[in-house]
């Protein structure tokens, strides 16, 4: 079994109103050193036996469903497990 950790984040050019609201709350709490907050998604995908190349498999799933590349970027980390 292979666990893949996928991070989906809004592109830099896209405003993140949720992140902006959270930053506002942090500032109210006194954390004025926080200059920006961006909220994204974290997915853990466990992959069983496959003949496919893992990178091309994960990229394909990200491009087709897990991320909308019009507004989002993605990156991932592969973790081997037994």
């Amino acid at each position, binding site marked *: 079994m292979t666990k893949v950790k996928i991070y989906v984040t809004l592109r830099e050019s*896209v*405003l993140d*109103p949720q992140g902006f609201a959270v930053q506002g709350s942090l500032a109210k709490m006194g954390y004025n050193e926080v200059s920006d907050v961006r909220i994204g998604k974290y997915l853990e995908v466990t992959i069983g036996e496959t003949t496919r190349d893992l990178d091309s498999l994960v990229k394909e799933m990200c491009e087709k*469903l897990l991320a*909308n590349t019009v*507004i989002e970027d993605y990156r991932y980390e592969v973790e081997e497990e037994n």
Partner: protein
Amino acid sequence: MKFAVLVFPGSNCDIDMYHAIKDELGEEVEYVWHDATDLSEFDGILVPGGFSYGDYLRCGAMANQSNVMAEVKKAAAEGKPVLGVCNGFQILTEAGLLPGALLRNKNLKFMCRTVQLKVENNDTLFTNQYEQGQIINIPIAHGEGNYYCDEETLANLKANNQIVFTYSGENPNGSLEDIAGIINERGNVLGMMPHPERAAHELLGSADGLALFKSIVKQWREQHV
């Protein structure tokens, strides 16, 4: 003219859409479940609002993977009219039938009220029964209607007159250039956040949405009768 109203798990404006076509317009209409594999008998495809697949992951993302969407792409390629309203608009952008994407409303609130729209382009098969520049009252009900696209796409939308409706006065969701609805380059796929099917009779507070459906039928009759 025979319409299909697509139904996904979580669609909730399908009945309003059906009612507008059948009872207000007097045209043929059928519900079509998301696993359907043939839309060839239909002349127009309506993708209704709601929360398909609970909006999980992203609005419209999972609906785009259903069987029927391959058929919607086929119908669009054949030049048949395809209308996506609210979640339907989100699904059409996810499907790549329309450019851009719908983001969370700028004020983070679910906005549910009647808004004023300006008809920016009445030279489409969806708007030929409106006057150019006409202001119409149509309800909105969405949390993610903040239209976004990159600068190049926006320039193309403007150059090709693909911005069909804009919010007049207050912009409820922070969309780029006050965009409320756009059409594809070919002119047969329209996506809009406001709900014309909820403005199909005076008793609903406005009948301004009816002209959109009448436009589709008029164009179709001229071509097929």
